[in-house]
């Protein structure tokens, strides 16, 4: 039983990271209806920026994370302005390919600047904590708590503030939003800002447990896609719930099936979903 709960906690950790990444992806999808294949590259860049801030500038962990969130958020905004905005009326094939181009560039860029090696990220929260008879590192606890905190913040932002509500409004009806006087370009930029920051945060939180390397975004982005297909493309709660479902499935799968194949679980889920429902689960009517 204790072992089982331990696994649940692991699932919660992994799921938190997945949810953060999927949240950014789903927000952008909701606004622009494009699957941003470059989102994983933003995640990777987020890891590197935090790491660099800590190692080169000697900044403390938290400050480094904040800077990284700002930098990657701005990078997201740039992508929106320079790439996705000019492609807003292009056929659907185009923005996907453009996103792939960005992904290639950012990966090559990371490799060029930081090298291809795997790097570790130090954390001030390395010690082991005992909680109700369970052992876990403080870093894991941090991931869970800060993710939940961010999600609560995001919820209040989207639900309780005018500015946040514009994102929801625009994802439900772009022209409708424009016609009540919302500047949709600003909203799109803001969404990319949030999306990028969330990716940077996720990477910075996860990196002390995993590692930092140019390809670190690949698996994460693929899984984030599975999550938003699971939770409904464009749905915010769906991304959170989907993220945790995948996190739990993986940590349980790693224990009870095989650790080597835990990464396959996400794809098995995807195959099952799309076999049953080719348009993904929870597709809602009336979404334009």
């Amino acid at each position, binding site marked *: 039983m204790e072992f089982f709960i331990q696994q649940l906690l692991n699932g919660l950790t992994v799921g938190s990271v997945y949810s953060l990444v999927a949240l950014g992806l789903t927000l952008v999808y909701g606004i622009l209806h494009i699957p941003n294949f470059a989102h994983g590259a933003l995640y990777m860049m987020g890891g590197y920026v935090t790491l660099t801030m800590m190692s080169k500038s000697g900044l403390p962990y938290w400050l480094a994370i904040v800077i990284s969130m700002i930098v990657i958020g701005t990078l997201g905004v740039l992508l929106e302005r320079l790439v996705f905005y000019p492609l807003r009326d292009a056929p659907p094939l185009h923005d996907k390919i453009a996103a792939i181009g960005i992904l290639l560039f950012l990966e090559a860029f990371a490799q060029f600047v930081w090298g291809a090696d795997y790097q570790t990220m130090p954390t001030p929260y390395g010690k082991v904590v005992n909680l109700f008879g369970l052992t876990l590192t403080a870093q894991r606890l941090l991931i869970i708590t800060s993710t939940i905190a961010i999600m609560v913040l995001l919820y209040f932002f989207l639900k309780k503030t005018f500015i946040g509500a514009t994102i929801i409004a625009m994802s439900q009806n772009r022209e409708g939003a*424009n*016609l*009540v006087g919302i500047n949709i370009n600003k909203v799109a930029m803001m969404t990319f800002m949030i999306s990028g920051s969330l990716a940077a945060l996720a990477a910075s939180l996860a990196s002390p447990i995993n590692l930092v390397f140019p390809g670190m975004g690949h698996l994460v982005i693929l899984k984030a896609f599975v999550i938003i297909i699971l939770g409904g493309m464009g749905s915010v709660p769906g991304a959170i719930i989907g993220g945790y479902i995948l996190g739990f499935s993986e940590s349980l799968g790693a224990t009870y099936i095989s650790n080597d194949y835990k990464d396959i679980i996400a794809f098995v889920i995807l195959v099952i979903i799309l076999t049953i429902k080719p348009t993904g689960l929870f597709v809602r009517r009336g979404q334009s």
Partner: protein
Amino acid sequence: MLELRNVSVQYGSFTAVQNVNIHVHEGEIVVLLGSNGAGKSTVFRTISGLNKLSKGEIVFKGNRIDRYSPDRIVQLGIVQCAEGRKLFSRMTVYENLLMGAYIHRKEKEKIKQSLNHVYELFPILKEKRNDLAGALSGGQQQMLAIGRALMSRPKLLLLDEPSIGLAPLIVEQMFQIIKQINKEGTTILLAEQNAHAALHIAHKGYVFENGTIAVQGTSQELFANDNVHKAYIGT
């Protein structure tokens, strides 16, 4: 108040609207008549800045607005209640109305007043304020769309086919409400296929045909015009 001068709009190689002149004075109800695809919606979209014009100019209160973005045009006081309603279907009625007041978002008291005003005009919206917009009936959605447009306190309200898809009783109600909105001081530009009902409340009208204005005149003149009668009222 609003003037369209020689406006043409092009979709690719297709000219949707050609050389259109429209003049709306303060306090009027002006109706654009014409069948599906005659160019009425295109004119509306162009006034709102959703489409760019290829020729001509649009002047509102002495300023050229044809290069403005849609949100800026809303801020000037031109608000459109578009065809297809364009509601936020997974937000509640209340949230939809609130978004309508987006440009006044910092003035809480003003929002409250507008909200009460809209609830007075459409009591059903108050009753259903916590329902999702997507769950409303067609008529209620149309009311919500108009209510949302009113929340921004427009000087000029563009109504694109408010009677579309409504039961006859509600159509009549709708036109009464439009009249009332106008009496309270909002200038209205209306696009309609339901010529009969629209001409009853309008001061003057323009008849669209194939992207151009075929006939124009006061409501009485249009009523008396045989061609208009035949083509758009159908008896």
